[in-house]
């Protein structure tokens, strides 16, 4: 029970910086995390520059098929999609990579579109979907977790049951079922209208399915905080619920959400890729890294680069997110765990 008390002699030292400032300072000293962050920023910037690349370097519209086009290669005009060189003239071969900055740097896909340009555009969607889904997930998880943990009683029971049901539904099957079914018509519930081809659909689905993963630990955290003496103290002085939520509960919840955030983005990115790979994620003609891998799978022997490049992009991005997540966890909360 008794806690060893160190007598602080640094009373004359300047007051410590705030919680977040301390965390930021720790993070900045973490070389791996900073490298990861830089990598992420570079990837985001590159993807943001997709239209510039498509217009000024690749000179192409990455959303339109280019089935009868030609391009200058080694001083000759070459068909972007030419008949394959075999005795039966069987099959069509997209042009291969030139490995030089310019049109078809990474070659063409099965529809004659510039793979490099599509990678950048696809990256935009992959990033957008995973970041937006993570925001939805974290906000919903914070809401449900706080509601259940703070107010308890029937609210808690109802939310916990719902979370358990979602949790028991193998998360991936849930995502696939929802996608298969919703892709046909989109969502049309009262005021909420999501078109099937809009990115909002995969964002919503991916955002929702991981809510239990985060909401459960948040609920546990809030449940613990609810019993903590400083929350009791706040109740004891007559502080209204919103003040307690705002000053005592939310800061703690947010710091663990910040730790979760990069990991959830990483998870979302992998999920989006998987759904798109099963062609029920981002819908054509829009691309994501997952859809490019899916398209590339049917070119895997002739033009493996189409599947390899976006896969590498995913690995690098997710790796950076995971490293950043580790760094954030070390900086903020060494005991946070994503699972349970």
């Amino acid at each position, binding site marked *: 029970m008794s806690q060893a008390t*160190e007598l602080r002699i640094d009373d004359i030292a300047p*007051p410590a910086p705030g919680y977040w400032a301390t965390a930021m300072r720790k993070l900045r000293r973490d070389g791996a995390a900073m490298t990861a962050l830089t990598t992420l920023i570079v990837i985001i910037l590159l993807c943001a520059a997709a239209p510039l690349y498509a217009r000024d370097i690749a000179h192409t519209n990455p959303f339109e098929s280019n089935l009868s086009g030609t391009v200058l290669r080694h001083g000759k005009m070459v068909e972007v999609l030419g008949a394959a060189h075999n005795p039966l003239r069987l099959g069509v071969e997209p042009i291969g990579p030139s490995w030089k900055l310019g049109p078809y740097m990474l070659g063409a896909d099965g529809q004659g579109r510039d793979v490099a340009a599509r990678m950048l555009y696809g990256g935009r969607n992959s990033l957008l979907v995973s970041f937006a889904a993570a925001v939805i997930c974290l906000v919903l998880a914070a809401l449900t977790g706080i509601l259940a943990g703070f107010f308890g009683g029937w609210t808690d029971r109802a939310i916990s049951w719902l979370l358990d049901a979602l949790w028991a539904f193998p998360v991936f099957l849930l995502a696939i079922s929802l996608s298969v079914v919703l892709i046909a018509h989109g969502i049309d519930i009262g005021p909420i209208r999501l078109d099937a081809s809009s990115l909002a659909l995969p964002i919503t689905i991916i955002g929702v399915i991981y809510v239990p993963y985060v909401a459960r630990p948040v609920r546990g955290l809030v449940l613990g905080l609810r019993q903590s*003496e*400083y929350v009791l*103290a706040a109740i004891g002085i007559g502080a209204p619920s919103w003040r307690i939520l705002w000053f005592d509960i939310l800061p703690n919840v947010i710091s663990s959400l910040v730790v979760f955030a990069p990991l959830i983005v990483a998870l979302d990115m992998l999920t989006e890729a998987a759904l798109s790979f099963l062609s029920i994620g981002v819908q054509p003609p829009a691309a994501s890294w997952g859809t490019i891998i899916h398209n590339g799978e049917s070119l895997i022997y002739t033009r493996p680069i189409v599947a390899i490049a976006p896969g590498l992009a995913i690995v690098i991005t997710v790796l950076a997110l995971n490293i950043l997540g580790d760094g954030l966890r070390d900086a903020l909360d060494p005991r946070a765990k994503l699972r349970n």
Partner: protein
Amino acid sequence: MNTPLLCVEGLSKHYVSGGALSRRGRTVVRAVDDVSFTIAPGETLGLVGESGCGKSTLGRCVTRLLEASGGKIEFDGRDITRQSGRALRETRAGLQMIFQDPYASLNPRRRVRDIVAEPLIVHGRGRSGEIRDMVASLFADVGLRPEQLDRFPHEFSGGQRQRVGIARALALAPKLIVADEPVSALDVSVQAQIVNLLADLKRARGLAFLFIAHDLGVVRQIADRVAVMYLGAIVELGPAEAVLASPAHPYTQALISAVPVADPARAREKRRIVLAGDPPSPSNPPSGCPFHPRCGFATEICTTTKPPLAPLPDGRLTACHHPRI
């Protein structure tokens, strides 16, 4: 004695555990069972007992952090047992609490300035500038320096933190403070400082305390009267000197004998009463006198009949068939 500040009558707190699906069915834990006492303005009532006897629960019921299952709590002439909303908030201004753990009772994310100011802000006690000054003077009152105001709790020692907790409790100028083992988490050397601070404050501001402790030695320094709790009920209640000098209940005797004595000569002559076994579970209390399984003086009647809390000739109350006088 003039009109009491706090009047607790027949207070009970029961927990129900298990449900229809539980093998044992519903079990009721009587954490606090039919407790009555009063505290006069400016008076300090020491509440002692082993850990788990329900004294903290009682404290939290009195401050309405827990909902009582039965009984009545009257504070400053008003029944506060079922108060809510604005009325409860007003009551709370006069009835504050100090917590046991100075580490857990302060939000680590907030600067102590904000922690101490919080009650003032919640109750709208002035503009921000005024509150600033009030906080500074509260800080001085509890023996902290104003330059420490902008620090975070983790930059303080345990004793200093408890001072912050006291400052927060004092902020609204309450009439009664429920101090829930305020020093048990602190080093012995610091304990005395904090108890002295509380004693000073009591004297200077005419504060009443419900001072909860498991250690009679601490209570001795501050309490005017002492109540001894065992298994959710008060077994002895009376003026501090009387109870401590000549405890009537065997349980009180045992507690007093456990207090370490500084003088080795006296320690040797002192007869230690060692309690047999652990305190029984409040969910399954023994029949008759709840203390009988551990009592050296228990007789037949103790196993069958529960002794009422009855006055002794000197005015003390005790719940024992065989009080030691």
